[in-house]
């Protein structure tokens, strides 16, 4: 008997939250003054895209219209994931969408604020607050039997290279895999955070580096993926044993979807061979498509995953709880990008996840 284990089980499919931003006014975006809408939110789970000849309806775990508050985005998307993190699960929140669709507003807040008390602050500051609220409550309840340690790292993936946003002087870093702690970025700086404010400080420091990088090295922020990782370690001293649990919370700001033509949204376009370069890179992709159609045979695919999917492999069809926030702009000029975002979000729903608890019993410590 062979064991048919390709994807994981138990139905914790990746959840998808679609958020429609309000129309822009005077922000200088090309979409300004565009009063025509290309979509309608028809229910809390469906959105209708006014495509021709037939309108198309897409269904997701949640669809938020233009009036949705930041608090409500947080409670539907992040609350549950943060709670799971406290219980030893890994969790990931992705933000996806075209530049100008409201990703940064959703994740951070207006103007990438440093002001912690702003009503409009985004999912990330709220997650920090909630996480530390839960930590403090847990510590109090256990009367000292439980303690927590929280470490943050912040990296950027640009052109398939990894940069450390907490150490802007460092050269590009490598991804490695460890038998105990899974995939990790070798040599990435880890900063301890003891409160939400401290965690937010680490985040905003890195975020600034990201923007500096965009001018000094001619990089553009929306062309890079940024991954903020919080590693939470809890230690519980029981009567005989010490239980240590670790979990990770990944907050991912994906590159603007319109920049990703090279990877996914490309469809039927042919890759060109420039006459100067003898390299026919795309041949590999063709072969990969051929090899993928196997009939129970085992084969090796020589072409590596992208850095991002490798780093987040665990979140995409592995063992973690994952939410994707797909931001869309309702303007009719954005029709093409909106359609591709909605399609991406729908494909993402097909990826299955399975959450599992991990307890590392360290034996007798008396």
């Amino acid at each position: 008997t062979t064991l048919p284990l390709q994807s994981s089980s138990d139905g914790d499919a990746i959840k998808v939250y679609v958020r429609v931003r309000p129309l822009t006014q005077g922000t200088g975006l090309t979409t300004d003054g565009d009063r025509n809408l290309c979509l309608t939110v028809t229910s809390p789970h469906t959105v209708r895209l006014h495509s021709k000849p037939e309108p198309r309806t897409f269904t997701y775990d949640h669809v938020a219209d233009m009036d949705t508050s930041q608090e409500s985005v947080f409670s539907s998307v992040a609350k549950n994931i943060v709670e799971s993190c406290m219980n030893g699960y890994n969790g990931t929140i992705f933000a996806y969408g075209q530049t100008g669709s409201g990703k940064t507003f959703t994740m951070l807040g207006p103007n990438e604020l440093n002001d912690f008390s702003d009503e409009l602050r985004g999912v990330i500051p709220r997650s920090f607050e909630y996480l530390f609220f839960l930590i403090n409550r847990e510590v109090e309840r256990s009367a000292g039997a439980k303690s927590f340690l929280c470490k943050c790292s912040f990296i950027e993936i640009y052109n398939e290279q990894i940069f450390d946003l907490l150490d802007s002087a460092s050269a590009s870093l490598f991804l490695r895999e460890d038998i105990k702690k899974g995939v990790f970025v070798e040599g990435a700086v880890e900063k301890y955070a003891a409160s939400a404010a401290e965690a937010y400080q680490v985040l905003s420091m890195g975020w600034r580096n990201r923007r500096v990088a965009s001018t000094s090295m001619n990089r553009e922020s929306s062309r890079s993926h940024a991954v903020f990782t919080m590693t939470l370690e809890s230690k519980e001293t029981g009567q005989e044993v010490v239980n240590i649990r670790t979990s990770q919370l990944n907050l991912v700001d994906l590159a603007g979807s319109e920049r990703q033509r090279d990877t996914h949204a490309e469809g039927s376009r042919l890759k060109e061979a420039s006459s100067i370069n003898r390299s026919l890179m795309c041949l590999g992709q063709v072969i990969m498509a051929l090899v993928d159609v196997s009939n129970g045979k085992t084969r090796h695919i020589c072409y590596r995953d992208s850095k991002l999917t490798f780093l987040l492999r665990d979140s995409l069809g592995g063992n973690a709880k994952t939410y994707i926030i797909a931001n869309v702009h309702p303007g009719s000029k954005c029709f093409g990008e909106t359609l591709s975002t909605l399609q991406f979000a729908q494909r993402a729903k097909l990826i299955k996840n399975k959450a599992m608890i991990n307890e590392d019993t360290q034996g007798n410590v008396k």
Partner: protein
Amino acid sequence: MASVNSREWRAVCEKFLRSQELSEKESRKDPENDPFRSKYEARELLKEIYCFLKNVDADESEEEEEEGEEEDGQCEQSESEGGEAAGGRTHPGDSRAGLRAAKLGVVEYYLGVNHIETEELSAGEEHLMSCVKLLEKCAVTRENVSLCIQARNQLGILWAGRDETEKAQGFLETAKSIYVRYMKEDGQPPLDLVDFFVVEQEAPSQQERMRRFEMVYTHTLYYLAQVYKNLEQYEKAGQYCHSTLQRQLKFSQFVPLEWAINAAALSQYYITKTRYMEARHCLAAANVIAGLAGEVPSEAAAKESEVEYEKREQLRQKRAEIARCWIKYCRNLLEDAKKLLEDNIGELDLDRQEEMLRARRDEEEEKERGRKSAVLFDSSDTFDSICRQEEKVSSVLPLIFEEASAIFLVGQGYVAQAKEYFEMDGHVTDHIEILQDHSALFKVLAFFEERLERRCKMHKRRVDILEPICKDLNPQYYLLICRQLQFELAETFNEMMDLKLGVADKQDQPDAHTIKKLNHLCTSSIKYYQMFLDSIRSPEGKFPEKLEDDLLRPALAAKFRVARLQSKIITTNLNAQLENLNHSLDSYNFVVQYCEENPEAKKAVETELELSEEMVSLLPMKINRIKSKLASSN
């Protein structure tokens, strides 16, 4: 007059050169907010050249009256001119009209490409189409053949981008047939596009011309490979991938490591099609070509310089990837042979083996013919080395242990090689997959071994390979792999127990040592099945009421095996016996009840269910017998 003309012509050539420079080199440095600046500049130059060709050449031909009448048509009347000039164009090299059309065609082509690159697709298409029309009647000539193919390559790319794949396919197939016809009818080095705009002495050598031309056609095949992939005609796409690689090799137009990886990957395609001869050929070629990429820099050198580090990393990684493709080759070849030779309980069918051996002797000649018709990479430089690589391993399904063992050893060699780069520390998933392949190689080799004791030893090797990592691997990150390992270990112990049981059956009375051994194997197998089953439980420890599709069969099978194993533990202690049998009954009951509540599961575990139902009705009697024995002894 001639000197004026040549001075003017020199200016045109310079303009052309400049436009190429702008378009290919300077455009790469254009600022983000003005990305097509150089391209637009190049376009203006091309337009000027176009006008010059239209006007000056027309004037010139009026002056040179002895050249005949067909040249004095106005440039606006290109349609009628085209018709008139048709006679002359069969030898365009000799005719001014032909040469002029060729030059105009080149400019149209570059204008077309320029518009496409600046995202004005329709305008680009128009230019390309006028290029094609201009040369329609004399495409297969030394002057035009390269241009005609390149214009169609571009049109193919253009239409594929518009999601009209069939249309793209049409252009590319035409390009292909133009090439084939030219090579049949002429075959001399044709003119390159830029050749029309160079002063005589700067013209490239014949050899260089041929090289460029062959590259153009290689690209046609490369695009066709993509088109057929998009059309989901995978067999054709595979053929074109192969031809592209073959031509890159033949005309020395490749980056060794990249070529080697593509060839190794293509072998995996052939494996899925059970075409082992081709698969082996690809892999042998990959080995040889990867060797051309140079020696792996030493660890010390890598520490010294970043360049050497990169090179070392690249070479080691790619060679390890190729080794992994070889492992899959050996594994699949052995497993395919096993499928062919096994009887209905998975044992070697001796009659079948005899029959196959006889058939093979008869077919020896047939095979020889097949070998000759297989597609090969026939570069004269590397052919011999590729053949030498091929000789190291068979591409024929093994039928006897010696043959299987030879393939196994080759596979095992590549396992060692692949592990050198894909170490556990840093490459967990890759490393484990290699170990799983190694285990699979032992498993299938054991199938060919007749002596039970030796078979058992081979399975023991599998345990030695897999057990240590199964203990260390963190299921929080590697749940799927953990499950695979647990299940495989459970199966291996189960297999070993069956083999030991077979050996014990030949003895009269199993001794204490044998019994201990059997019980150990039995409990080890139960332990791993149980670990696998526990991994399915929810965080609260609850077993799911409904199993996911991909876990249904393995989970129920595991329950069934646990039931069976529990009843096989040998003990003279009646209480222990009773306990074991009760456990066994519980597990059989689980299978039966699950299938009652979820009738759709019945199909997945037909045999197991039937046996479980039988056991559920029989076991209670046995249990009662032991109970009464216990009662009477008290």
